[in-house]
């Protein structure tokens, strides 16, 4: 039942809530070392040996004054928890979506909250090693650390999908228009100077009535699919089978497609269905492939 009424007023109000916060001597020292030395410092409780960052002048558990016990921390650390901020409001430091993480700096016992960049949202995980990236311009605040980003940095090569990442139904293709020069170059590469590919007068006498491309030429277009797209870099091809269904004429645009059809759990191999079609959607060839998907590589150095 609706409780809305036309005969009742609603008062709209707005209150200003300005405030200041005094960082104090301890908080200020932390900010000064961020600003002037790009160093993150923590405070150590000599009783329980905990190192706190952000710093606090007392250990609340031992109730000890610790404000003199500064220790240098590394600018790197481990993500102990994170959330992804997706809602937008005017006072956010960066535009959503962004990752807000708890980062336990190397040498510290308490985590620091900060932004993590340089990692796809879907790849963010607890345990990730990250390092502080300092802001170009100081604001004498915690934002003197602009953000944290993965220590590994961006891999130099985007490796393909591993066995575990591949799912039946995933597919990828590559398209190319087969030109006369492609055919002539392929003849040179393969040594196949058959006049049906190179001699128009001869070709007129064949059932095709004109020169056609070598069968292996469109077939080879599956190589960039398997090796560079699906599964992608790191794939080893074990077997490629093809049955030719129609000729490829000069100027035809061929699309080679691979689709994951079976995961062979025992061997951790993948079987893929292959098709080659032309610009008229005619099936040029079909077949199958057996591949070893890329193994997860050891993390590369930046």
């Amino acid at each position, binding site marked *: 039942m609706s409780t809305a009424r036309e005969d009742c007023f609603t*008062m709209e*109000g707005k*209150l*200003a*809530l*300005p*405030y*200041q*916060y*005094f*960082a*104090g*001597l*301890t*908080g200020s020292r932390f900010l000064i070392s961020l600003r002037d030395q790009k160093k993150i410092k923590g405070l150590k409780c000599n009783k329980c040996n905990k190192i706190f960052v952000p710093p*606090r*002048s*007392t250990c*609340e*558990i031992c*109730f000890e004054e610790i404000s003199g016990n500064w220790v240098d921390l590394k600018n790197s650390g481990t993500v102990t928890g994170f959330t992804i901020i997706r809602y937008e409001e005017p006072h956010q430091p960066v535009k959503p979506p962004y990752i807000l993480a708890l980062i336990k700096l190397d040498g510290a016992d308490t985590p620091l909250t900060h932004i993590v960049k340089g990692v796809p949202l879907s790849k963010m995980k607890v345990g990730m090693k990250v390092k502080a990236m300092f802001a170009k311009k100081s604001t004498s605040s915690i934002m003197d650390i602009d953000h944290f980003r993965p220590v590994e940095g961006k891999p130099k090569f985007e490796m393909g999908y591993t066995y575990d990442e591949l799912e039946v139904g995933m597919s990828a293709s590559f398209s190319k228009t087969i030109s006369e020069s492609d055919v002539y170059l392929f003849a040179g590469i393969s040594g196949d100077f058959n006049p049906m590919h190179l001699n128009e007068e001869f070709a007129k006498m064949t059932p095709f009535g004109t020169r056609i491309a070598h069968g292996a030429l469109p077939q080879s277009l599956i190589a960039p699919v398997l090796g560079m797209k699906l599964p992608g870099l790191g794939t080893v091809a074990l077997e490629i089978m093809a049955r030719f269904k129609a000729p490829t004429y000069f100027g035809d645009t061929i699309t080679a497609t691979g689709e994951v059809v079976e995961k062979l759990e025992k061997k951790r191999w993948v079987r893929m269905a292959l098709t080659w079609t032309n610009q008229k959607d005619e099936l040029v060839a079909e077949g199958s492939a057996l591949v070893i998907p890329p193994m997860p590589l050891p993390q590369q150095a930046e």
Partner: protein
Amino acid sequence: MNKNRNVGIIGIGQSVYSSHREDVNQPEMIHEAVVEALDQAGMTMDDIDCVVHGNMELFEMVHQPDLWHTLGTGVFGKESLRVTTGGTTGATLVCAADNLVASGLHDVVMAIGFEKLQEGHTTGGITNMADPLWARQLQTGALTGMTAAEIIDEFGEDRAKKASMKYRIIMDKHAMKNDKAHRRLGLEFDQADDLMVNSPALVGELRMIDMCSQSDGTCVMIFASEEKAKKFCKQPAWIKDHITVHREESYYIFGDAPYTTSHRYAARKLFERNGVKNPRKEIDMFEMYDPSSWWGLDWLREFLLLEGDEHLKMVENDDITMKGSFPVNPSGGVIASNPIGATAMVRVAEAAMQIMGTAGDHQVPKTVNQALASGFGGTMWTVLFLLTRDVPGRDEHLISSV
């Protein structure tokens, strides 16, 4: 008041009161007073069973400060509760701590009142108190010139202004003897005429010099059961009784119709049930929550149940000075220091210090056997305390009637 057991004040800590405490954040400022109170009581946090924490709601724009302040309060792993009753917060903290100990729930309770007014926006906080439908768009904040106008009406401009200014200068002379006070201006009585004219007017005859400040600061008090208090402290200040009275005043006062103030009502009740017939004789000193010199002057009459111009005479005759017959606010009062969530607690703390003999340079030169302390806030809240040097006797009549 009928209590299960007596409660003694055994430790008091105060931070320095100041307009700015940039050297400390909130938990650090609180920590200063916590350490001082523990030292005075000869205790460590291990001896504290429960911590009661309070400040004025919204004044620092910090949510649940009691939890956040754990770094400075030492409350980790202990019982705790938060009290916020506006200007009376500090006084209500004392009531809560007293109740917790008297009830038998805890043996030793620490109460913490603090405010860091410089960090917040008091008008924003106060505006929230006004009724959003009928008053929020109209209300004007915490200043009022009404009392000044009333005193001038009743006693004439010359006498009223002189008495108010003399009250103000006496308070400053007291503050000069209190190291921790915020405003210590070094005023002299011969400046009175000048200040009455030249201090900037705030509302009507309420001038800047008359009004209390905004301060940063913390007050911490430790309360103990009779047994523990005697064990830890040579001379505790005992909480004999306290009373809280409040009323929504703005819908009660119509024109010049006579009314009983919450102060007078509280005093009458408190004196009645404690057999105080002549407060000025039986009570040795008074720490009053005096937000302005005009209020301080007027409220002497209310709290001491005086009639006519007796209260003016008390000021004119120097009765309220530190060496006078009835010292009022040897600390300098609220006009000198006003960290709101602590302010009302400081009144009780300062009265207790006079009994315990720990007020140092602003200790009154006589034995204080019985002291009065008041808290004030919001729309006429009064909390009034009676503290004693001797362990309060048990009122067998009240106990047997339970």
